[in-house]
């Protein structure tokens, strides 16, 4: 037992490898003493079942070979072991009783049942004395049978290798999962500076905190000696991934204490219970777990196995364990999808990288609808505040190959469209990038073109004017070289150009919003109805008042308008109007249009300036024939007043 134990730095689950395990004595040589003790007791022991077969086999061995220890033990304790073969035989029997690692609260129960099993089976040690006694006669009978069987089966000689393997299969680890409050903070002091030997530590340190719901379990591995529970406690190791060795060592000491309080009684349940419920608070980690210390030299406590290495390894591993457990939990539960409000098992849900989850049916429909409609830019996390991306792999599963292809091409197209400097090669339609002076070169066919007019690059020469372009395109329409798609596109361009031409024939564009406005009446000071911009219809400049027209450039009224207006003006009308205005007292209204007319000189016959009707000033009636109306019988044609 002079072997030293290696520290296990990695992998908490299997914390001991076969090769370097040794028996960990609780105290100096307890076993030896126990052995003797035991052997002495043996003869007088009240436990018939075990006592039975020791002497009968003639094999003396000391341990429950629950584990890997046995092989090594043999060599270490040479004289005590007589036969190799039988041990292995034993082991294989015992092996059956190991139901392997047990978890959490169940741990204790299973342990008991294991023990029970062992008692029934070929057991090599007496433990849990009370259990044994329960078995009573049946137990004795079973054991005897098993012994006999075992004897018969003993021819197998296992190699070292095989024994090692067998031993590993018999590990007896208890995984204790601590229950945490829902958001349990874990902190670690991180140093900005990587040199561990620097003197000024404090200024570089900062505290990093994250929250978990699950911590990887405390693994308590026990080896029950023959003298348990009467004299010796089990030898054990504790392995924790996230505690420093010193802290684990504290836990070990506590376990010792617990044993010492109740020597002679089974302690495993207490140990597990204590580790499960009080270990964290014992270490002072009630509210928060503090990782580390990382640069403190580890005490060599052979019972403490720490998986803690450094913050950048520990923190991710703790987080990933936490996420795994949370995910498991999720899968096992029943949840309601927030889109369709139906309840499904956790396995029917899809979880996105942004942690939002939706049922598979909803996601499938959602993806289908958007790909069908082509609105792929909206195909993101449905959560209104999130909008996180959906991974393409997931989309492929949801959509199926064909639709996924469509999605891909739509995405490509949309992305390219969004980029302002992307244009398509007129010849081969591949996307190309254009630079500042509208020049682009196709990477596929090497065509160098102007992105504005889509013709061959013309350095220094202006693009084709719309008219030229129209003509050019129209000619091309008839060419048979054009492919359908391209022809249709060019036809669209032609129609566009024609429409614009038509519009611009009679209209001018507002200088700010470019909308086409045509003037039907009035002067050249135009108001754009969109945003109220004033502009001159002559020169299309933006103006603010009438000053523009006084400068001498543009006329407020176009010449034609003035001419037209003048043509319409009737001199006689004008005079008549003025006179009516001036001599209103003497004016008489026309029976036709009610406008006031003043008579010319003495003549009572009025030719209305407004409606051109004839009427008599005196009687104010319409006159058809003046010869009939005026005369000795009728009105006087001439009179004063």
């Amino acid at each position, binding site marked *: 037992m002079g072997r030293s134990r290696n520290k296990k730095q990695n992998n908490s689950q299997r914390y001991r490898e076969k090769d370097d395990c040794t028996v960990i004595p609780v105290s100096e040589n307890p076993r030896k003493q126990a052995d003797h003790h035991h052997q002495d007791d043996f003869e007088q022991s009240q436990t018939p079942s075990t006592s039975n077969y020791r002497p009968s086999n003639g094999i003396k061995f000391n341990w429950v070979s629950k584990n890997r220890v046995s092989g090594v033990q043999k060599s270490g304790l040479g004289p005590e072991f007589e036969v190799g073969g039988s041990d292995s035989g034993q082991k294989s029997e015992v092996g059956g009783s190991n139901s392997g690692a047990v978890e959490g609260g169940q741990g204790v129960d299973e342990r008991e049942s294991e023990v029970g099993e062992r008692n029934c089976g070929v057991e090599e040690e007496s433990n849990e004395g009370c259990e044994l006694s329960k078995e009573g006669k049946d137990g004795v009978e079973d054991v005897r049978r098993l012994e006999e069987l075992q004897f018969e089966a003993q021819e197998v000689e296992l190699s070292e290798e095989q024994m090692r393997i067998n031993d590993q299969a018999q590990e007896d680890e208890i995984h204790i999962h601590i229950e945490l409050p829902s958001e349990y903070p874990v902190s670690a002091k991180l140093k900005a500076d990587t040199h561990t030997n620097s003197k000024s530590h404090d200024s570089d340190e900062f505290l990093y905190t994250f929250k978990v719901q699950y911590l990887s379990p405390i693994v308590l591995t026990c080896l029950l000696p023959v003298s348990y529970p009467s004299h010796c406690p089990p030898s054990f190791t504790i392995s924790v991934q996230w505690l420093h060795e010193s802290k684990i060592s504290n836990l070990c000491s506590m376990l010792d204490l617990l044993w010492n309080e109740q020597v002679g009684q089974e302690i495993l349940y207490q140990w597990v219970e204590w580790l499960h419920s009080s270990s964290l608070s014992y270490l002072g980690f009630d509210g928060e777990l503090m990782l580390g210390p990382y640069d403190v030299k580890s005490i060599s406590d052979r019972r403490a196995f720490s998986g803690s290495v450094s913050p950048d390894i520990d923190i991710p591993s703790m987080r990933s364990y936490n996420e795994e457990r949370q995910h498991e939990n999720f899968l096992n539960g029943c949840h309601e999808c*927030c*889109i*369709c*409000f*139906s309840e499904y098992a956790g396995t029917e849900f899809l979880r996105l990288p942004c942690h939002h989850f939706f049922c598979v049916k*909803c996601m499938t*429909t*959602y993806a*289908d*609808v*958007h790909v069908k409609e082509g609105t792929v830019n*909206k195909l993101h996390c*449905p*959560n*209104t505040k999130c909008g996180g991306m959906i991974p393409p792999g997931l989309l492929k599963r949801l959509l199926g190959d064909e639709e996924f292809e469509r999605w891909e091409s739509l995405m490509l197209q949309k992305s390219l469209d969004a980029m302002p400097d992307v244009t398509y090669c007129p010849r081969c339609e591949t996307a190309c990038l254009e630079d500042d002076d509208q020049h682009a070169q196709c990477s596929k066919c090497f065509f160098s073109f102007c992105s504005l007019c889509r013709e061959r690059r013309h350095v220094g020469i202006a693009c084709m004017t719309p008219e030229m372009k129209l003509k050019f395109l129209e000619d091309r329409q008839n060419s048979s070289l054009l492919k359908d798609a391209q022809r249709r596109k060019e036809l669209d361009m032609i129609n566009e150009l024609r429409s614009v031409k038509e519009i611009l024939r009679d209209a001018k564009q507002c200088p700010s919003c470019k909308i086409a406005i045509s003037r039907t009446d009035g002067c050249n000071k135009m108001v754009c*109805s*969109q*945003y*109220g911009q004033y502009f001159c219809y002559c020169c299309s400049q933006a103006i603010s008042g009438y000053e523009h027209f006084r400068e001498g450039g543009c006329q407020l009224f176009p010449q034609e308008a003035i001419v037209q207006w003048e043509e*319409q003006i009737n001199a006689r*009308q004008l005079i008549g*109007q003025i006179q009516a205005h001036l001599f209103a007292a003497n004016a008489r209204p026309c029976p036709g249009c009610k406008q006031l007319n003043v008579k010319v000189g003495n003549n009572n016959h009025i030719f209305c300036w*407004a*409606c051109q009707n004839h009427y008599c000033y005196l009687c104010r009636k319409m006159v058809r024939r003046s010869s009939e109306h005026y005369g000795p019988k009728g009105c006087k044609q001439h009179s004063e007043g």
Partner: protein
Amino acid sequence: MSSPSKRREMDLMKLMMSDYKVEMINDGMQEFYVEFHGPTESPYHGGVWRIRVELPDAYPYKSPSIGFINKIYHPNVDEMSGSVCLDVINQTWSPMFDLVNVFEVFLPQLLLYPNPSDPLNGEAAALMMRDRAAYDQRVKEYCEKYAKPEDAGAAPEEKSSDEELSEDEYASSDEAMVGEADP
């Protein structure tokens, strides 16, 4: 594709639970009327509108169509038909939105912050950009005239848009110049 009816039922229930007066059109849960009050900090305050909601087949993956039965003066609502510019809803729609969201968040926001870049009612959009005070005034006038509680409670045949042709079009200024006689 048929969407789960459970979703529609839940949405309708939630809407009714939030104290909105909902009137079904038929039993198919496709269309119904809702009474909507103008948001308080906007010129639409005090107005009551009857809104027709239509849930498409692909609901909730596609947004519902919203229409105002009685008249409203708003850049994104067509004055004659009352339909709200679909694109505006569609841009921001998500399957997690529900009807309560539409009436509590989306519509009030639309009324408070119209989107002049995509107007159904160009005149309203232009007025809003040019003279905000005049726009507010106009809105209030329309509310007075067309958005009284009685208007919103009226029968669905309110769509008398034919008679409501604005007389403005006929208000041609033929007073012109005195003296311009037609020969």
